């Protein structure tokens, strides 16, 4: 298998050289240097994931699927290294200052030994190192192992924890093709120049292209999973999409209503934003009682008021998902409205008045003035709402459905904890699924940064 590895390295190096040469040329810098930088970065990047694995995917006893996965990992490493180098070269090229060295003295800085600031930072750095960086590395290591909770011994299993999640009918070659396509697609995506997006028509075409790319990517990935993981992936994507999409639309509508200059507006606002204080778990508790098939008020109203039949809210997969999404939207509503009302205060009044004078109707004014002015807030809210649907929704699910019926409301984080700690106690598999969720989070965040191009701070 040595030949395959060497061939791959040369291929990625050549690709890297071409890509970076073009990138450097565009920035009016030497293409030759770009080629060298690209080749080295791609080669190092290719090895970056393979060396820790000890090239195990290419060992003779591994299956073709493992080998295909290995090729994808090599390409992924090269792609990440190229992205990093490209970003760094932009940073250094952008302002050739002392970003990487010692900054010049600023007025008002203390002239002490350099150990003093490091001592001030020491507690923060120590905690981040022990409780974030070390677990992050440990997660990657666990993902390649057969590891059980409460058994200290672990065994190296290469990429089996990952390939188990892939449909066994796929061959290694399919994986390589899909991996290449995905990487090329994201490269094109990443390389797009934002300047072109200013023209309206181009923007529309680009948006359609995006939708197409995202949809085909989704279908591709859905087909890739084994039956077991496909359901989890499906739940994660759609719970997030519906919660964020519908939730933000409703919140914006209510925020605009509550922003109207009418009497008692502040009372309405208070009545709309209090649900910020509701925790994910409490939302789950309240909705579990409301939708309880026997004693719940929803079924009671369905039967007595609408003369319908009682619905099996928690035993029907579709209905269970519906309740989960409803509870999630409700839980996030107060927070979203709060930020949208704050955002509406930044909508430039003169632009609105100018648009009115130009004869724009209410809907046109909304689309051309209000919505663009709110885009930083929308971006911030999409990220925070995604954090909720990817992670915090755990509490809601645990009180509402416990992931049931038969996994219909189990999203990625719920499955990770179930597999890793609560029932299977299989740390390796759970770690591998954590990495997949991590990639999803990174992917969505990158797409977000690319589309809105605003930098907003978030996190908790």
């Amino acid at each position: 298998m040595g030949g395959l590895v060497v061939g791959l390295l040369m291929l990625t190096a050549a690709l890297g050289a071409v890509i970076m040469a073009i990138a450097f040329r565009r920035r009016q810098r030497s293409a030759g240097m770009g080629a060298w930088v690209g080749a080295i970065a791609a080669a190092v990047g290719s090895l970056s994931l393979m060396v820790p694995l000890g090239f195990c995917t290419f060992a003779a006893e591994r299956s073709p699927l493992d080998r295909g996965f290995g090729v994808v990992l090599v390409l992924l490493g090269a792609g990440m290294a190229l992205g990093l180098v490209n970003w760094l070269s932009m940073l250094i090229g952008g302002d050739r200052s002392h970003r990487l060295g010692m900054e010049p003295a600023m007025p008002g800085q203390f002239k002490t030994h350099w150990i003093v600031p490091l001592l001030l930072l020491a507690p923060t750095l120590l905690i981040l190192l022990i409780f974030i960086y070390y677990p992050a590395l440990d997660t990657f290591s666990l993902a390649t192992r057969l590891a059980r909770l409460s058994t200290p011994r672990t065994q190296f299993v290469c990429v089996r924890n990952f390939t188990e999640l892939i449909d066994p009918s796929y061959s290694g070659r399919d994986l390589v093709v899909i991996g290449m396509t995905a990487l090329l697609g994201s490269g094109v995506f990443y390389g797009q120049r934002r300047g072109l997006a200013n023209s309206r028509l181009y923007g529309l075409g680009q948006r359609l292209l995006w939708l197409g790319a995202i949809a085909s990517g989704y279908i591709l990935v859905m087909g890739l999973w084994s039956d077991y993981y496909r359901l989890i992936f499906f739940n994660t994507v759609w719970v997030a999409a519906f919660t964020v999409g519908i939730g933000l639309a409703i919140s914006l509508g209510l925020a605009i209503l509550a922003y109207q200059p009418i009497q008692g507006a502040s009372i309405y606002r208070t009545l709309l934003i209090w649900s910020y204080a509701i925790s994910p778990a409490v939302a789950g508790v309240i909705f579990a009682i409301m939708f309880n098939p026997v004693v719940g008020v929803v079924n009671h109203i369905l039967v007595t008021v609408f003369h319908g039949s009682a619905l099996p809210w928690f035993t029907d997969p579709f209905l269970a998902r519906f309740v989960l999404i409803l509870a999630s939207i409700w839980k996030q509503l107060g927070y979203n409205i709060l930020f949208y009302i704050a955002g509406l205060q930044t909508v430039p009044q003169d632009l609105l008045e100018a648009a009115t004078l130009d004869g724009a109707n209410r809907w046109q004014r909304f689309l051309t003035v209000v919505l663009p002015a709110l885009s930083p807030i929308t971006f911030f809210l999409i990220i925070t709402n995604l954090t909720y649907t990817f992670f915090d929704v755990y509490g809601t699910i645990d009180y509402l459905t416990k992931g049931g019926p038969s996994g219909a409301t189990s999203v990625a984080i719920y499955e990770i904890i179930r597999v890793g700690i609560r029932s299977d106690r299989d740390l390796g598999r759970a770690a591998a699924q954590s990495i997949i969720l991590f990639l999803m989070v990174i992917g969505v965040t990158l797409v977000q940064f690319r589309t809105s191009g605003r930098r907003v701070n978030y996190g908790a």
Partner: protein
Amino acid sequence: MSKFELSHRPKSDRFPGWPQRWPIHLLLCLSCLLVGIPLLYAMLVSTQSNPEVIAFQVTPGSSLGRNIWVAMVSRNLGRYMLNSTIQAVIVTVGKTILSLLAGLAFVYFRFPGKWLVFGFVLLTLMMPTELLTISLFRIVAGGFQWGDSLYALTVPFLASATGAFLFRQHFANLPAELSEAAQLDGAGPLIFLWRILLPLSWNAIGALAVIQFVYVWNMYLWPVLIIRSDRLQVVQVGLSSIQSAGDTGTAYGPLMAGAILASLPPLLVFILLQKQFMSGFQISREK
């Protein structure tokens, strides 16, 4: 800063062309009602006894006091709320102190590799704790042997990029003359932080405090895994002891009373510090 306050502007018409006011009132009343239904229902149930709940009685029952007592005392919710308060206060105070120190170091000192260290802190924004739960559980419960302890609930959450970043932005916007004057007077960094920076930072501290308090109070995933004993359990997990109370089945009234009680502290903190919260959000937005 005023643009983020939730107050009326003197300008009478924000979206010119809206018709009469009463349809807006009507729509708003309806939406408030719709949004409020789950809570109103929870409040209603919290006043009722089990037979009243099952009979779908629409008027408030008379069991509110009994339900609160059952939730708080017999089902131990009081203990859980105390535990959550202790946890939230320790994390909020600890994180504020560590973040203040980090912000101080990033703004008022120069040292080799500053950008690298800042990048090291900032990069953790990309690594949510929830994704690391599997490994964190192994480290905290196995390595540190902290399973079932207050350490496990607090120490891993004492540092964060958000806090360090917030204070860095805040300090960087303060005039440099402050620290020059302090140094002329012979004040060291910590004296400067305590005497000068702290009084100027209450808005930022308030903002961080709201975010952190609500974050810790609402924490569910970590305590449900790491805390085994009833004595140390936190409120979000403790609610389940009311939900699944063995022989008698779910006691709906106490459960809903508990859910409402569990939501009061964050609501209180939020109402008290709302202004700081919004202005802090503005600081943390990069310009």
